């Protein structure tokens, strides 16, 4: 090779190295789409004059199982087969006498749900069990003033220990207490905190649960005299819907979950659909605002929108009874309403869409019937149904379904669980 040709060859190779693009590094496959969970975590109280019934319902057949966990181990478990009607009720007393613990219900599919009914001597609470456990949840509407007693129940059914920090606000501002920081919820265990022992005399209390390790399902039990209500801490959001049963008294609670100021607006659904904004306001971090149902008489449902994540809950109370539930951020074509009902209930349906919905409500019990109903656009209807283990609501338009049980001294209010029944 001549000298010139040698140099030319070398130069050409060097130029090629500069000009040619470097090959891209290989990447692993894409992350898969997220599968919905097929389990629920339920607060369970057994003893002290209270007992728990779990209602489990599913749109598909399959086995289910309940595991009661406490102090790092399993304290009772039972496998169950959902009957032909797709629902069953398990009295916890038949499984184990366990105190205040958590229950993990393994569902046959993602289109299933469970609910926990805690019966006291004169009280009854009902709330759907927790299916989604994000790293941050929030609850509002609690109180430790007067005869009110607020008990926070943190549950960790999973393999690893969880650590959470509680950000608690009240009318006194942000509450500061060692018991709120680095709360360890052991694997397969619960942490129960009576807030009256820590911050008594607070008219209102909001709690944000920031989980730094593991996952924690949080629920609250609020008593006021003999009456009791239970609802779940949920992930904050900017848009909420909740129907309001007819003829009830109580309040709508809006609370800010995030730092900074939040503007919110409450839209009211009347007999003719959305009637306009009834209330606007702003909230600082952890602050809650109450809207008396009496002030919005005739309202069948509300929609709350906010500039930053908030949580909305509905409390029904007439002075002797108390029930509450958290609003929903979601509309769906199918809803499961675990009930474990022993008496007649009312199913309240909200159609927030602009078209009418054909709705069929099924009572999941032996010989339970179907109740087809037409739900007008932006309309709310309320169905009175006989007792059943659970109710399944199917609609051709995405709607919201809630269960209300009014009977004697004990009311119960529980938002339904949206499921995919496609």
């Amino acid at each position, binding site marked *: 090779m001549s000298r010139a040709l040698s140099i030319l060859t070398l130069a050409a*190779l060097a130029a090629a190295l500069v000009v*040619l693009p470097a090959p891209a*590094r290989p990447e692993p496959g894409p992350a*898969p789409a997220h*599968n919905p*969970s097929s389990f629920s975590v339920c607060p369970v109280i057994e003893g002290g004059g209270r007992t728990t019934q779990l209602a489990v319902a599913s749109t598909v057949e399959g086995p289910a199982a309940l595991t009661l966990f406490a102090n790092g181990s399993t304290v009772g478990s039972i496998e169950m087969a959902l009957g032909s009607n797709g629902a069953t009720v398990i009295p916890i007393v038949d499984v184990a006498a366990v105190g205040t613990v958590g229950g993990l219900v393994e569902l046959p599919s993602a289109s299933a749900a469970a609910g926990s009914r805690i019966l006291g001597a004169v009280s009854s609470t009902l709330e759907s069990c927790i299916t989604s456990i994000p790293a941050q949840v929030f609850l509002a509407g609690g109180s430790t003033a007067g005869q009110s007693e607020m008990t926070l129940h943190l549950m960790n059914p999973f*393999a690893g220990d969880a650590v959470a920090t509680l950000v608690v606000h009240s009318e006194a501002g942000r509450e500061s207490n060692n018991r709120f920081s680095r709360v360890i919820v052991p694997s397969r265990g619960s942490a129960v905190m009576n807030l009256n022992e820590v911050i008594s005399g607070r008219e209102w209390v909001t709690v944000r649960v920031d989980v730094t390790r*593991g*996952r924690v399902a949080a629920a609250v039990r609020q008593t006021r005299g003999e009456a009791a209500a239970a609802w779940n801490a949920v992930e904050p959001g900017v848009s909420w819907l909740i129907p309001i049963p007819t003829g009830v008294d109580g309040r709508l609670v809006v609370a800010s979950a995030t730092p900074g100021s939040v503007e919110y607006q409450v839209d009211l659904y009347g007999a003719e659909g959305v009637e306009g904004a009834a209330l606007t306001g702003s909230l600082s971090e952890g602050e809650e605002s109450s809207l008396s149902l009496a002030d919005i008489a005739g309202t069948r449902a509300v929609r709350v929108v906010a500039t930053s994540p908030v949580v909305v809950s509905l409390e029904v109370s007439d002075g002797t009874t108390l029930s509450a539930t958290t609003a929903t951020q979601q509309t769906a074509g199918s809803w499961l309403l675990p009930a474990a009902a022993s008496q007649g209930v009312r199913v309240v349906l909200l159609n927030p869409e602009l078209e009418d919905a054909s709705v069929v409500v099924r009572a999941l019990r032996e010989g339970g019937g179907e109740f087809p109903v037409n739900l007008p656009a932006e309309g709310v209807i309320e169905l009175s149904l006989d007792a059943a283990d659970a109710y399944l609501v199917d609609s051709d338009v995405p709607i919201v379904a809630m269960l209300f049980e009014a009977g004697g001294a004990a009311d119960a209010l529980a938002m339904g669980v949206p499921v995919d029944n496609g």
Partner: protein
Amino acid sequence: MTAKILLTGADRFTMADRMTSPSAPELTEQTPNEGNATAPKVLVLLTVIEGADLDAALAVVGRQVYEPAPEVVVVGDAGKLEGVRVAPDLETAIAEADQSIDYFWILHSDARPRPDALRALVTEVERNGAALGGSKLLVAGTPDVLESVGSATDVFGEPYSGLEEGEIDLQQYDVVREVAFVRSASMLVRRDLAQGLRGIDHLLPPIAAGLDFSQRARIAGGRVISVPSSEVYHQGRCDEGVEGWREQAGRLRAMLTAYTPLTLLWVVPYEIIVAILHSLGSLLFGRWRPLVRHLAAWGWNLVRIPSTLKLRSRNRKIRVAGDEELFRFQARGSVRLREIGTELSSRVLGLFDDDQALARGAKRVWAAPGIWGAVLAGAIALIAARSILFTGMPTTGATLPFEAPTVSFSRWLGGWNDSGLGSPSAVHPSTLMTAVLSVLTFGATAAARTVATVLSVFVGIVGMGRLGGRLGLRGPGRYLAGLVLMAGPGTAVLAGNGSWTALFAAALLPWLVRAVMVPDGWEGPGSFGWVLVLAVPTAAFAPLLTPVPLLMALLLSPRGSMTRRLVRGLVALAGVAVAVPFLIGHPEWILDAGQRILPIPNRIWVGLITAGAVLAAMLADRWRTVAVVGGVLALGSWVALLFPVGGPGVEEALLITASLGAALVVSAGLDMIAVEPLRLAAIAAAAAMIVVSLGPLGNGRYGLPSGDLDERYGFGPALSGDTDPGRMLVVSADRDLLPGEVRPGPGFWYRLVDGSGITHDEAWLPGPMEGDIALAETLRIIAAGGELRPGAMLAPFAIDWVVIEGPELELEAALVGQLDLLPTPLSTGARVYENLSSAEIAAADDGAWTRSGAGYAGEPTSGRVRLAVNYDPGWQPDAVADEWAVTVDGRTGRAYYEAPAPDVAMALAGPLVFLGGLGLIIWGRRKR
């Protein structure tokens, strides 16, 4: 040589006329001592040596200028001789000697003493009051080549004359002195002493006989001296036919008979240790005979223990001096070990010393071109190994511990490939090399790994220097270029990625290229043998490197040498035989670009290589050719790397070739130091490349990344107790953080590793089989979340632990809400989950089996045992598929894999090629 000078100015006779014919010595001017009535009377005991001319010997004795004329007795089987007495053996001759005799002159019939030899002996022995005197022996038929002037020995009787081979007698040793022993070819001994000692031990060969007699004379109180003025030409026929082991056995017997029991108490064990070390050292140089000789010598002596004891008993009666008297004339240590050490050092230094400067003398060593480059490169390499030497080998990437050599051999010979979920595919051929290295260190696998790794860079440096020498380069740059070869643009990328095999492949490549680039006139089978012997290990470490020598032969050979080199380049391709089973079982290793590192060309290297090659291209042809070929190889390899074609095997070969090319550019650029602008610029570019190479070497691990997976994943075996630690699923978004090859998963890379510790053979993952596909699907489901019991899903794969390395993964969010993978806080830096639903890797109905070699073993059971490995009918006994896994009959208590015969045959091909190469080398040497 230890000696005591007694006298100077010994009688000197003319050295001008030397006898060149052993049978007809010339007469020198004689100075007879006629009429000296007081002169001692000497009896010549002429020992018959087979093949020697007895008549000539008698004639020579007859010409001795000594009075009274010595009487001659022929000792041995001499037939009928007229006028000469004959004795059957020396002992008889000595015993029958007349009391008037003063001295015996014991002389071999193959010795030709000068006429004055006897007189000189008698004179000096008398003058010094010695009991035994030996002549200076010169090799007959040579120009005064010295054979012996008396010798020292070591404590084992090994002679140490201090003479160089072929050393000419220039009177440099002409001093009468006490010595340890004199040869029996010509020795004068006092009659009374000889009779007391009963002559020479007839069982011993000549040298040992002299030693034995000298030692016995000394412990009897006699002085043993060398008389250089007594010159005897020695034909050496007495040594012929005497096997080396006989001399060795004789020396051993001399030792056993001479020393006191107290001395023997330490000398005998010491001798055994020396014999072992000497044998091993000799084996290192390919000599097996010393081992046999040692064994034969001891065997011979063990058989003759009774006669040895008898001799000891006899010696005890005459002993007047202790062993200290013998020690006075002995060299320290072992002569044999010293010789081995000298040979070793000369061979090692010879590697760096093409010009034999060392052989010419230490003063000229530093004037030798290349030597300081070699020393500097060696020093840098030593510093670059500091972390390995002080803290041990890293265990990370594909730099992993060896398995026991028996297991590695078994895997290589068609055994089960345990990587991942296992496969019948062959393991990487370097597994065979790890077994060989481990055998060389007697099974100490960690030592084998450390020593071999440290030596690899030295081998590469020397190889590069030798290759440069073969290409006509003589300067220091060719050795310094070894640093660029081992840490240059490509090798550094591989080493940095944890490729331990790349170091060895790079180190061997220049040797292989050198073997192919034979110079003119090199013919014969040996040159082909070297090509094969080097091609096999090179291919074992980097299978696709074998075409590089052919390419080099094509590019670098002048027309006259091209055919010969091309043929050898083609022969080098045979080395790939060792990798054929692996390549067949792992086609993706050649084809799948997804497994490649895909490095981005370093602009600095591109600039330096281009500049260095262009500058050297403007120099004379000698440097231009080497630099241009090096530059084209380096840059061309990098250009090829930019195309995402070919798998990691292709990438590995191209990267190492790029380093070789860069090293050639450095060799040419630094070959000559001269103050010329062009040369200085080329030197600067070459020096800059060396400096850049020092970067990767700076970490003290030859560029290998740090890390200790044994420690990092040591919790597996530590926490598993008595049960088999099963497997670990290691997962990361960054595949460089995982050991060895990995598989792509949903949003992460993953692989399985042996829970008891990942080993070298596991670095390469075989092609996916049914189990691997099932695992991939399981991971996809788990990663999607919503699974409450992922541990139970992983249990069939015997996954006891899930380890997540590096950045946070979406998978971890899925693992937050589950029941049976317990997050375990360990101080490893990784997120570790213990599988609470784990299952045994070899599960029997009534217990578990554990790994045993390349298979599994446990308590025999009447049921079947499920092995969590990919199904293959080769599993024994009685393999039955259990979904993707396999079950075997548990009654034997053992499960093992039996490879098909063709697989075993293919595995043997590589070693056979290697042995064929060795055979050609031996054949070539014999031919030569």
